[in-house]
């Protein structure tokens, strides 16, 4: 309780509140514009947040992260185009409802389900926090190494049908993290004699290249589509809450899936919504309605999506291991301010994670209030032409990549990764494994090095209760993956 009060004190600060409102409102708007998304926005704005206090910068990013999916549901329902990729399943039932003249009902259900998912996951987090704080001291370097290894393996195996590509890209991410001078023996690794590579390849130009610049290239190169006429959305958007209550048997498990999938590194919103949607269809008395405008389909996908952001903070805050790419970006804000997320954070500054949870709680309220008044305004943003968006993103890209240290080399690195990201998008290969490979590879190297004094044999790596348990989990994940491959044959 004391922690909660302390947390409220932190988020009641004016600068934090302003960051929260800007993040939440900005995130909804960005989410509603197809082709932008939270990843692009966070990548661009990330370096600008370094000058703020950690809590202010993180609040801004959390606001964007927690709200983009709310906004993404609007074009998904109205024009059959998801605002963010994770709103894809919302199109299945949202757009048919719009075609039936039920756009207001679909949007209001999406808002209420998203709000429910967001609040549900934050309550779960606040409940879990004391437990996390109690087990945090059990985690040593070897345990965190094993957890990062588990995260890397999950990132690979969760890309079903693209496991080899994901493995290749995770390994590439680990490799590029090694480029430059290593700080133990001060030897250069893969610098090819180039002075500019001695300081290594920083995460942020890579993130901006893969997310923002590549998306700008995609948008600039493709043709503008026909602007569709937007349907009218008139009436009370709060009505979805009463309808949501009717679908509580869908909403609770879906939000639960979102929390579980958010906690597991490398899994995230896609599988959460996929599982929830499949479950909702399975338990429905009229499964044939799914894909043809079933309101419970919207409830399933939106509750699951929006439960993920808060849950994704758990591995980041408790172990210092980002489970997906947006939390990987946030990790750099922690590092810039010399706050090391992980077990010690819960011992030394327990109010910090709690205030972040509360931020997520407040974000959901701000978004809902904003959407109730601004939905009609946001609808017009959907009509921004694709290539003009590309122009804007490329212009904004300079802020992200050049403002870190005014380095032209960073810009070349960013552009190179932008081209790579474009190619990966053309090939429909994932870009996230590169980022997570870089981050998790760095964590694994540092933690393994810290454990060296205690390592006589490889068994020493797994002879602790926590690391041993994680090792068993790794074996289970690998066995389950190979068993699934065997069954597929």
């Amino acid at each position, binding site marked *: 309780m004391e922690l909660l009060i302390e947390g409220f004190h932190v988020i009641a600060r004016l600068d934090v509140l302003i960051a929260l409102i800007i993040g939440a409102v900005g995130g909804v708007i960005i989410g509603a514009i*197809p082709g932008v998304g939270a990843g692009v926005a966070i990548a661009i704005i990330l370096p600008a947040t370094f000058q703020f206090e950690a809590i202010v910068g993180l609040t801004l990013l959390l606001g964007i992260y927690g709200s983009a999916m709310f906004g993404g549901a609007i074009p998904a329902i109205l024009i059959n185009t998801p605002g963010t990729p994770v709103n894809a399943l919302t199109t299945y039932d949202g757009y048919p409802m719009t075609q039936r003249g039920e756009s207001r009902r679909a949007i209001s259900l999406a808002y209420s389900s998203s709000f429910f998912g967001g609040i549900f996951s934050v309550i779960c987090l606040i409940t879990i926090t004391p437990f996390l704080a109690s087990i945090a001291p059990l985690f040593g370097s070897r345990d965190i190494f094993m957890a990062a290894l588990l995260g890397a393996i999950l990132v690979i195996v969760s890309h079903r049908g693209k496991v080899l590509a994901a493995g290749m890209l995770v390994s*590439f991410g*680990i490799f590029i993290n090694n480029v430059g001078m290593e700080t133990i023996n001060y030897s250069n690794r893969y610098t090819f004699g180039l002075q500019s590579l001695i300081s290594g390849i920083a995460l942020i130009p890579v993130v901006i290249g893969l997310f923002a610049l590549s998306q700008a290239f995609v948008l600039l190169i*493709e043709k503008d589509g026909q602007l569709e006429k937007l349907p009218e959305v008139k009436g009370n958007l709060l009505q979805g809450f009463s309808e949501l209550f009717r679908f509580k048997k869908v909403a609770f498990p879906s939000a639960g899936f979102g929390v579980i999938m958010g906690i597991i590194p490398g899994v995230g919103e896609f599988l959460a919504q996929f599982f929830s949607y499949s479950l909702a269809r399975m338990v429905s008395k009229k499964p044939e309605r799914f894909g043809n405008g079933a309101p419970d389909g919207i409830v399933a996908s939106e509750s699951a999506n929006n439960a993920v952001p808060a849950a994704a903070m758990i591995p980041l805050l408790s172990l210092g291991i980002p489970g997906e790419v947006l939390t990987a970006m946030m990790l750099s804000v922690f590092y810039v301010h010399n706050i090391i997320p992980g077990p010690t954070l819960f011992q030394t500054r327990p109010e910090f994670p709690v205030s972040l949870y509360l931020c997520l709680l407040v974000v959901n309220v701000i978004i809902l209030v904003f959407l109730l008044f601004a939905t009609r305004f946001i609808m017009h943003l959907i009509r921004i032409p694709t290539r*003009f968006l590309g122009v804007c993103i490329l212009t904004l890209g300079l802020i992200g990549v*050049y403002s870190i240290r005014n380095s032209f080399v960073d810009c070349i690195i960013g552009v190179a990764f932008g*081209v790579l990201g474009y*190619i990966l998008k053309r090939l429909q290969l994932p870009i996230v494994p590169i980022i997570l490979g870089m981050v998790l590879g760095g964590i694994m190297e540092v933690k393994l090095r810290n454990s060296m004094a205690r390592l006589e044999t490889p068994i020493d790596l797994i002879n602790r209760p926590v690391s041993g348990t994680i090792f068993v989990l790794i074996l289970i994940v690998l066995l389950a993956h190979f068993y699934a491959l065997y069954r597929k044959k």
Partner: protein
Amino acid sequence: MGDSHRPTDQQKHFENRRQPGDSLFATIVFVLTVFLLSQLGTQTKWIEGTKLLAQPRFWPALSLILMLLFAAGYLYFSLRDVVRKNADSLDDKLWQPGEVLNWLRTLEYAVYFLIYVSAVPKLGYLISTLVFILLLTFRAGYRERRFAGWSLVVGLLVVILFKSLLQVKLPAGEIYDLLPEAIGGIMIRYF
């Protein structure tokens, strides 16, 4: 809206359908990995008396070996699909050098971006941004005045938000030295 937003694209997150240029990309990655691995001896150090896991060479070697294994598997399956001509997972255009032209189209915009970055220390953030966004809007095919107007508004807002308000660290333009001291000072600080 553009094709990349269509729901069918999102559904492909759950599918495994190879795209044009897949085998070419797999080949390039494989060859690059072999090259990087061949440089292991010269690009990393082995320090005598240090444990294997603490060697500076250990992580680059491990990551490249893993990358080689995954890339080899990826290349094998990609080429196997070409050979089998399986209609379910293979597009006729799979081994399509024309796709490279698509990839190369990004270079045009990459060059524009790098010119923009190079211009900032000379012309300052405000002028560089306005010129860049205006020309890029024109290049993107928007010839109407309203788009030129919108691009200038967006450019100005970007500069005001990031440079004037958030004071993001960017080099001051050399051109500002030509201005009277008082105005130059304001331009250096805010634009």
